[in-house]
């Protein structure tokens, strides 16, 4: 463990957004040269805000930022970059049509597009880290892991002293993950750089880092050398939660018979063969980190993944493979990205709600009756407590939470027989979250089988009868919703040490 003075020191960093939201309430962080520092925290703990402050994308509201011992204040990303901090975001911003070399040199100054010494310099960096890639290949032809490496090269060619990596391994395959790990170790070891490594995978943090900081509710709740910590201690520091969105309710009614049966659902490269059943009125949760295959499972079940194989049966009827056939048979998906996949922006609330089941609102099965659509939308606005002037309001005029309720309302007009929800509470406020969770519970109480994906594990715990844990494209564990704690879920999803790994996935 390196005990040199910190390269970067944050003291009591606070961040209050103009609307009064407090994202960080006095966070401390020390990152030393020649060491890998792990940063963990649940959703909303303030990790992303902290990274944005380090990279100069956000200004601090209070507290001190010290770089190489001197107080600094960055107002633009270029300031942090010039000082020697390179930030690698989850979604690597590269230009797909340019070559690897040109992407690596994207931020460099000068007149000429191609210079011999640049090629040599980048080649030298490649030799140093021991990674091979064709510098002239267009980035579009690379895998996600290779792109990650291009972004790392970009950071190194800029001569960074601190490399901040925001979940660099989340969407990588295992060999690619090992390459990233090797290079991170090499950066900190041989080259003496500092690395701030953000990850949800606790085993990865334990194996890779020298020091760990855990954020919770905008504060550092744990800071210690990694070799003094256990996976359980880290999980506990992440989980301890004060705000509970929805209390678990004992669901008295007996579970109905099994109505949904998925057999050997798989997708090459992203999802191992998976079998699952959902009973009438049952809520089954899928717990998994980003890249665990949770969204891939939903898309395969919905028919939105053309490469997917396997069968979906509802009430003894085998459904066709396409999304159109599955929607017609009553499969409903509330997608992860509501603006891109959930609603038609130019449509009103009423038009969006009636979209999947327009026929049932139409005279002669052809002419939509505005009065019927209106009545259904007014009822939905009432029942889901959507805050909107009326059914003729454009869906783009609503806040995120209310737009999400419209996307859910689309599927609650009586036609659905199997409800799939992908992160239904992402990016919406706490009041709307509670509404959405209640809504899901009510839909299940009405007899709908529900499959719920969420990275908010406490929501799964509050809602689900059964929880399947996914990692690396496979279901690795299955638990009863009332027989597991959030800590255990974090451990199961974020660590390889699973007692029943493989038992359920087969």
């Amino acid at each position, binding site marked *: 463990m390196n005990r040199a003075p910190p390269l970067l020191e944050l003291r009591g960093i606070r961040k209050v957004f103009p609307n009064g939201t407090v994202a960080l309430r006095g966070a401390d962080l020390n990152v030393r040269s020649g060491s890998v520092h792990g940063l963990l925290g649940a959703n909303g703990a303030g990790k*992303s805000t902290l990274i944005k402050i380090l990279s100069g994308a956000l200004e601090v509201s209070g507290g001190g930022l010290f770089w190489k011992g001197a107080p600094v204040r960055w107002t633009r990303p270029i300031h942090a970059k010039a000082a020697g901090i390179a930030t690698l975001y989850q979604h690597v911003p590269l230009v797909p049509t340019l070559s690897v070399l040109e992407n690596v040199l994207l931020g460099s100054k000068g007149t000429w597009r191609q210079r011999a010494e640049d090629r040599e310099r980048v080649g030298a960096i490649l030799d140093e880290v021991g990674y091979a890639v064709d510098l002239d290949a267009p980035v579009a032809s690379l895998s996600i892991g290779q792109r990650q490496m291009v972004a790392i090269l970009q950071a190194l060619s800029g001569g960074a002293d601190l490399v901040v990596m925001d979940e660099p391994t989340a969407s990588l395959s295992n060999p690619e993950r090992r390459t990233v790990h090797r290079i991170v170790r090499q950066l900190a070891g041989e080259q003496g750089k500092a690395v701030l490594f953000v990850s949800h995978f606790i085993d990865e943090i334990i194996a890779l880092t020298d020091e760990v900081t855990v954020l919770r509710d905008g504060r550092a709740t744990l800071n210690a050398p990694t070799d003094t910590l256990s996976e359980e201690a880290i999980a506990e520091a992440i989980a301890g939660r004060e705000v509970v969105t929805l209390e678990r309710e004992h669901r008295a009614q007996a579970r109905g018979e099994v109505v949904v049966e998925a057999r050997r659902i798989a997708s090459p490269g992203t999802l191992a063969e998976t079998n699952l059943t959902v009973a009438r009125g049952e809520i089954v949760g899928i717990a998994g980190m980003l890249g665990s295959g949770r969204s891939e499972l939903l898309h395969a079940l919905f028919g939105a993944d053309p490469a997917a194989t396997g069968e979906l049966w509802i009430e003894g009827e085998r459904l066709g493979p396409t999304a159109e056939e599955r929607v017609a048979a009553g499969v409903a998906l509330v997608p992860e990205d509501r603006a891109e996949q959930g609603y*038609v922006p130019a*449509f009103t609330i009423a038009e969006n709600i009636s979209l999947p089941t327009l026929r049932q609102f139409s005279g002669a099965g052809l002419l939509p009756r505005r009065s019927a659509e209106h009545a259904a939308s007014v009822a939905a606005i009432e029942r889901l407590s959507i805050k909107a002037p009326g059914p003729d309001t454009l869906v783009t005029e609503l806040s995120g939470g209310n737009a999400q309720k419209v996307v859910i309302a689309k599927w609650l007009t009586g036609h659905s027989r199997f409800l799939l929800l992908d992160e239904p509470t992402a990016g919406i406020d706490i009041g709307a979250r509670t509404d959405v969770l209640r809504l899901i519970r009510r839909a299940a109480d009405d007899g709908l089988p529900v499959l719920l994906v969420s990275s908010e594990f406490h929501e799964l715990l509050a809602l689900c009868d059964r929880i399947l844990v996914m990692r690396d494209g496979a279901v690795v564990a299955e638990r009863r919703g009332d027989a597991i704690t959030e800590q255990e879920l974090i451990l199961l999803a974020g660590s390889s040490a699973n007692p029943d790994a493989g038992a359920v996935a087969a």
Partner: protein
Amino acid sequence: MSVPSTWRTTLGLREAGVYYALLLLLAVLAVLASARGFPPYLSVQNLGNIAYQASLVGIMGVAMTVMLITGNFDLSVASVAALAAAVMIGLADSIGLAPAALAALATAAAVGLVNGAIVQFVGINAFIVTLGTLTAVRGLVLLLTDGRSLIVSDPEVLRAMLVFESSRVPIFWPALALAALLVASGIAGRARGSGGVGRIAGGLLLAVLALVAGPGADLAAPVIYLVVFTAAVWFVLRYTIVGRHIYAVGGNAEAARLSGINVTGYKLAAFILSSVAAGFAGVLFGCRLGAINPTALQGTELTVIAAAILGGTSLFGGAGSVIKTVVGALLLFTLTNGFNVLDLGANYQGLIEGSVVIVAAAIYTVGGRRAARRAKRPAASPVIEEPAGSATVAKEA
């Protein structure tokens, strides 16, 4: 779409700008005509002429609008029209007009199917595919005609063509009836709270026009075809499930697909509609002349697209109105007609027409951006209602 219409939004510059532009242009031309001592510009006969000249582009423009709403693009319409005309003229002497016209429409539909299948199943951009068929189909026309003009020689067929294309249809009573229908439906719509302002305004305008024209007014058959086709497509878009799905497919294809709508089917159908409409325009064109020149209608596809843009159709899909496209076509042909009739110097014509298209697009874009800013403000900053600590939760999975 069915954003609640008020007098202010419906009659505002962005919504009704193309109508004002047409009225303004007619007024300017009328003043110029009287200042220069020409016969009155706003005669029933001259207005009927403009509509006649605009009818082919109008028919293609209506189908093009549907195409643009679904988020695709068709550059090949003029070549397809020429191909249909060549097929019809080439066959009419031997098999008669009606079978020849049907063969022409079938040929056009086949080209549309090819266009759509390549775009939807191979996944090439519609702009590129139809740029290719624009040239290839024109080449096919040259092959069919061997580079010469084809003419119809059978007098029977020529007479049938004349009836189909050049007969005059009395319109006084039908126009008054249609006007009454529009106003009544508009009033009923307002009573139910779903639009209607445009229908009332249009109905009143139509009634005034009919009364001014007098009981003897008549119009050329192609204008009637245009009116009927436009009305049918308008009805489908405005009132049926098919129409709603077409807007949804163009507005957000992914959301439409995840709602169980057959996105590929709708986009393919739009290609076929566009080509069949072009084929029909080609048949009318062939009947008008009784002959076809292999270079006929060259460049017309750009006029068709310009008409749709003048009508406010979005090139990104999801928005557009067929009636406004027709008005856009009328606007373009009023310009041409004005330059010819008033002898305003034909050299300026292209410059003015092009500028008009750009100004119109600028008005729509700037106006649209303002409207979008107004509409998006609450939604664009979801941070407003984030709870403590989760301001960045959306992407932090």
